[in-house]
């Protein structure tokens, strides 16, 4: 009996622990919400939609590889920086890349993360008990963003896996979906967005920067232009033009200053802000910023000699697009000295922002995705292809006139064209000069079916016709798909 008495406290302890064991071990996260309690309120639906936008500021979505696969790869720009910095961009510039180049891998991963977020919201928001008007708008925003992600992906890679909902583990091995079906989804998404999004002016001031009806129609017009569906491209562009929501800024250079953010000319742009507390910036400005003195950035995306030579000497857009050594920064804060390790330094002025808090990596310059001038030129190109060259030239001359600004006409004469073919070349060149260093050139060249011809003329003689119009599917993705993904021709 004596022994048993001693065992009592131990037995009591054992019972106590058995009794409370399961609750005791059930530690729920203290800070983070868990998935099972999310998508319950309208507020959470807004938060999830914000998360789809948030991805637009990412390095792999709108910054390094994005610039590499739009500007640097084209004849508008060279890699920039020092010769051995980020050699993968040099490979893109010179068409020596293969399927292991990290540029295509980066955008692929980044854009599909965006697709995942849009799909998540599109799947879950319909069941959220909330204001139906707001619900429809949020769904339309996610449709717009998903279309934007897929539009860039399909233009870079061609056939791609078309993911429209969260995959379960037994669906992880996917095949590529034909381009036609990808475009069908893009068009469907944008049509839904155009039908359900408010116009820019209908948004509250605090919602400026969200996708609008104009943005959806504008992007749709570009999709149709890419597909050479001229009438539809013209119709959607005219929807934007006739909406009364947009007009060109009087001065070209003003578009790319802080004051030019979300201007009357902005159809869609990615908002960023350099807060003292961080968290709202992107590195878009930094990677293209002046390398050396003043220290604004890494010095990538050097406007090429070919681009510089493309402008008439007196076109004000050249100066507004390019920084050269010895030039004073637009805010007068410094003279550009540059870096002795960089040969023939030259930078993209459109990506410039004045110094802000927390250093260059916290860039607050908005990333312009679709400008009204772009929409006018889409309308011009489509109209010309439909046979109305005079109207086409008139549309393009609106852009030309603004570029000229207060200068006398001879400095930048109006565009003229003798015939449809002539007008096509004139409008193509005007697109290049107007949208230079805005990540449009490569997609335009491929769309116009002359990427190879132009690249080889620009001295990029490694360009392989019929191959390099598309980028390789990242090798790691082929491996992880269990071999279900097939490589683009020429990259096997």
């Amino acid at each position, binding site marked *: 009996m004596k022994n048993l008495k001693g065992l009592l406290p131990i037995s009591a*302890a054992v019972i106590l622990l058995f009794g409370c064991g399961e609750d005791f*071990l059930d530690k729920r996260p203290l800070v983070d919400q868990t998935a099972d309690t999310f998508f319950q309120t309208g507020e959470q639906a807004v938060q999830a939609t*914000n*998360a789809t936008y948030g991805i637009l500021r990412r390095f792999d979505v709108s910054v390094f590889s994005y610039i590499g696969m739009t500007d640097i790869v084209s004849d508008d720009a060279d890699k920039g920086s020092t010769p051995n910095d*980020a050699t993968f961009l040099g490979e893109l510039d010179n068409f020596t890349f293969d399927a292991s180049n990290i540029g295509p891998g980066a955008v692929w991963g980044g854009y599909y993360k965006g697709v*995942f977020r849009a799909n998540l919201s599109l799947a879950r928001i319909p069941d959220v008990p909330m204001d139906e008007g707001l619900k429809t708008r949020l769904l339309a925003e996610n449709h717009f963003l998903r279309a934007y992600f897929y539009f860039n992906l399909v233009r870079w890679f061609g056939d791609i896996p078309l993911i429209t909902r969260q995959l379960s583990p037994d669906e992880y091995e*996917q095949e590529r979906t034909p381009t036609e079906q990808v475009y069908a989804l893009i068009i469907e998404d944008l049509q839904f967005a155009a039908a359900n999004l408010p116009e820019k002016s209908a948004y509250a001031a*605090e919602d400026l920067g969200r996708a609008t009806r104009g943005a959806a129609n504008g992007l749709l017009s570009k999709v149709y232009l890419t597909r050479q569906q001229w009438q539809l491209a013209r119709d959607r562009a005219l929807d934007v033009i006739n909406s009364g929501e947009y007009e060109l800024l009087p001065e070209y250079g003003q578009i790319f200053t802080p004051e030019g953010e979300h201007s009357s000319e902005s159809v869609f742009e990615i908002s960023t802000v350099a807060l003292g507390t961080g968290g709202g910036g992107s590195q878009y400005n930094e990677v293209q910023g002046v390398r050396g003195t003043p220290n604004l950035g890494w010095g990538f995306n050097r406007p090429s000699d070919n681009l510089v030579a493309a402008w008439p000497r007196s076109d004000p857009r050249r100066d507004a697009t390019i920084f050269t050594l010895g030039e004073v920064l637009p805010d007068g804060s410094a003279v550009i000295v540059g870096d002795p390790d960089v*040969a023939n330094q030259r930078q993209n002025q459109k990506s410039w922002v004045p110094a802000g808090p927390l250093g260059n990596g916290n860039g607050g310059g908005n990333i312009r995705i679709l400008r009204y001038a772009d929409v006018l030129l889409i309308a011009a190109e489509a109209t010309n292809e439909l046979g109305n060259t005079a109207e086409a030239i008139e549309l393009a001359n609106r852009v030309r006139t603004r570029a000229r600004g207060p200068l006398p006409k001879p400095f930048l004469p109006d565009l003229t064209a003798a015939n449809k073919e002539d007008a096509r070349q004139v409008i193509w060149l005007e697109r290049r000069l107007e949208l230079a260093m805005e990540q449009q050139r490569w997609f335009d060249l491929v769309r116009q079916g002359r990427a190879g011809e132009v690249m080889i003329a620009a001295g990029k003689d490694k360009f392989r016709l019929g191959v390099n119009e598309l980028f390789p599917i990242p090798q790691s993705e082929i491996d992880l798909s269990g071999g279900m993904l097939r490589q683009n021709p020429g990259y096997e």
Partner: protein
Amino acid sequence: MNKYVTHLAATALLCCAAAVGLRAQIVSGTVTDAAGETLIGVNVLVPGTTTGTVTDFDGAYSLDVDGADSLAFRYVGFTEQRTAIAGRNTIDITLAEASEFLDEVVVVGYGVQKRSDVTGSVSTVDAEEITRIATGDVASALQGKIAGVQVVPVSGTPGASSVVRIRGIGTFGDARPLYVVDGMLTDDITFLNPNDIERITVLKDASATAIYGSRGANGVILVTTRRGKEGGGSLISADVYYGQQSLIRKIDLANANEFAFLANQLARNEGRATVPYPFLVTNPDTVLRTTDWQDAIFQVAPIASYQVSASGATDRSSYLVSANHFAQEGIVRGGEFTRTTARFNGEFKVKPRVTLGQNLAFSLRKAVNGPGILNNAYQGYPTLPLLNEDGSFAATNPVGNPLAQLEYQNSTGESVRIVGNVYAEYEPIDGLRLKSSFGLDRTDGKSENFVPVFFVSPLQQNQVNSLSQTRDANRTWLWENTVTYDRSFGESRLSLLGGVTSQESRGEFLTGSVQGLAAENQEFRFLANGTDSTQTNGSGAGESAIVSYLGRVNYAFANRYLLTVSLRADGSSKFGANNRYGYFPSAALGWRIDQESFYPQDFVINRMKARLGYGTVGNDKIGNYRSIPLVSTDVFTNAVFGTGEALNFGAAPLALANPDLRWEQTTSFNAGLEMGLLQDKLTAEVDYYVKTTRDILLVVPIADYIGADPPVVNAATIENSGVEVLLAWRDRIGRVGYNASINGATVKNRVLDLGGGQEAISSGDVGSGRLSTRSIVGEPVGSFYGFETDGVIQNQAEFESFPTRAGQQVGDLRFVDQNADGVIDGADRTFIGSPIPDVTFGATFGVDVAGFDLAVDFYGQAGNEIYNQKVTSRFNTFNFERRFLNSFTTDNPSNTEPRLLNGGGNYEVSQRFIEKGDFLRLRNVTLGYSLPGTLGDRLRVTKLRLYASGTNLLLWDSYSGYTPEVIAESPINNGIDRGVYPVPRIINVGLQVGF
């Protein structure tokens, strides 16, 4: 203050007076060993009292026994002897040597065992071995002391801790061992003062660690702190040392002229129109003034430790009180560390069968963290001065001025930690002990980072000052209830252990920052003093809990056959409901062959024991909540909207979770043989082990088009195997005692499985998108992976006859075409080294004679490689190591150094940057002198020892960096020298006094 001191002095005087007033009864005598040699330092005491003394240099003692009836004599390595005083005034005693290896008591998990009964792989290190090294880091004092325990300092930063690996690496995650300090389980022993440690015991194999279940897989280190010892009387001791630390060696960098020459050469190689130092071309005899940036940042720095303690014990109670202050500055300017610790250990037999006790440790750590300037010194131009003529900081290029960084960029940290437990033990009947122990471990930390407004150059400036502050608090409680029952019947001895334990941990932090403080003085550094619009704040918290049930049976039959069986069941909050509990069994057998009747009596091997153990243990170091899908929110879930460009909060469940998450499980087999030769003068121990870890947590990549971050899954398998050897010789020739021991261990590490069809885990980012390590099936974890090199392409003919990489030229590295397809590309990369040493070893030699004691420690490792990343990191033209002077040019057709460039193919991960990591270090030499007892008596001290010690005195290696000891906690990011802060050489002198 003065009043307080006076009061103390008065109290002390009164005590002395009281002591003097007692009637004296003096017993004196001499203590010798069987050979007739006198024994110094033998404890002579009156059992059950605090009365006692120690023998002096001549083995003599003299003690006031105050009417006691017996005396006890105790000496390490000898059997205790008691004798009745019986009115004698002179008692001479001859002590018999004990077979210490049999009777020594070893701490094992949840109990103690006689060394001869131990069936697992268990090693111990005693206090005197630990305190020889001048360091604040207990773990670093273990370096080279135990076979199979690799200890590598993370850096030489003051107060830095060490990476400890027991028997290789069995995870891709956290490979830290579990520490158990006087029964408190923890992952961090930086609060411990080395002087407070009595002994460290390392449990290496699963049969020894299985009693710690889900936390035993990386090995267990048991730390026993000092307590009052019966028989020593009341002992007050002081132990102080002071030393100086210095850099062991500099890196061989170019001087100004050499740098300018190389910079010109590089500009030509890059095809630039102009060279940066044209005057050196036109006038080659120009002598440029060199700034040695390394001299500018390194210093000789002090290290010191001050310890006082008091201890004592009777048969009813014991106590130890200690206080220590440790202070260390960095050999790189700017870093400081101090730690003040106090400890109170006590045990009280409050009733004949009831014991209460407590261990309580307090530590206050303060650190000034200097800026990271090692790479500045490595990269900065030696042509540039660091100070202008007016003493201001000079603008430097292309890296910042390190002296200015020291001035402007410092952060501070401070933490208070209290670790302690109280326990009660009740022995209702002989052999049955019920024990309940409750412990708390609480840390409160704060850190601060302030950057003032400054301008050194456009590259190095700060226009708006900023302040950030963090507070964190971590607390753990542990409640352990155990019952043990020991009984002998016939030839059997049985010991049973059962227990229930529970533990809960919570950590939280609060952080804030602000910019634009109106004033920069220290007094104004509060978050309220900045610009409101720049304020940020954040906080977080996490919790975890474990409930465990444990049991063990030790059975010995006829003192020959030993059996240990244990089982622990752990339930942990970290794992999904589907796998919340894990069961960790083990079994071990021991056979004391020398106890067999057939064993020859006078055989040279007088002692022999064989051990065999097998068991399963786990690793739970995976972080909290990994099995629960969380809603993610970060910089890129928030979006910017509105005319005011406001941040709009965004969140979404983005990560895939794994509700089936469970422990990494290590199954280990161990076979050991222990021997004593020549009456245990020579002892030998050999162990062979195979440790297979399954279900290793891994993020198995999924295709990016799935769009979500992949979950953590239990997927991989890693095996470690090896042999450990310990040989020790201990003898005494006349008055000269001497000992020598060597230990060595091999580790063969390889990945057996990566699960789910994954081919490789690539890691070890070395910049420019290059990864330097790869873990694949069949190779060691985190092996270096890159191009094999075969000299330099010497000329056009060679260039044309060998396969080359796109963009290569004459003068570039020749990479080996592994797949012989005529092209050098990514497929030609191969395994070019491993960061895991094949062999680690240590050796100790000691001599004591005539009051002098000398100890010499060596430590080394072999068979590993280092990736010298700092050489490859060239985003700009930086300074060069002098070996670049041998770069390939047409005039200097080097076959080792390729043509000079800042980047490109020659900087691909290749053998060019792999260096041997083998080294042998003269770890420590300590020479001490203890005052003879007679002199000590006159000075009224029982111990007075003076010593001088040198740590890291000599290094034999072939590595070109500061130190070949390069490690990271992450096993797949290991052995990469990104500019490691080297451990210093330390010369210190110390004094130990006891009275």
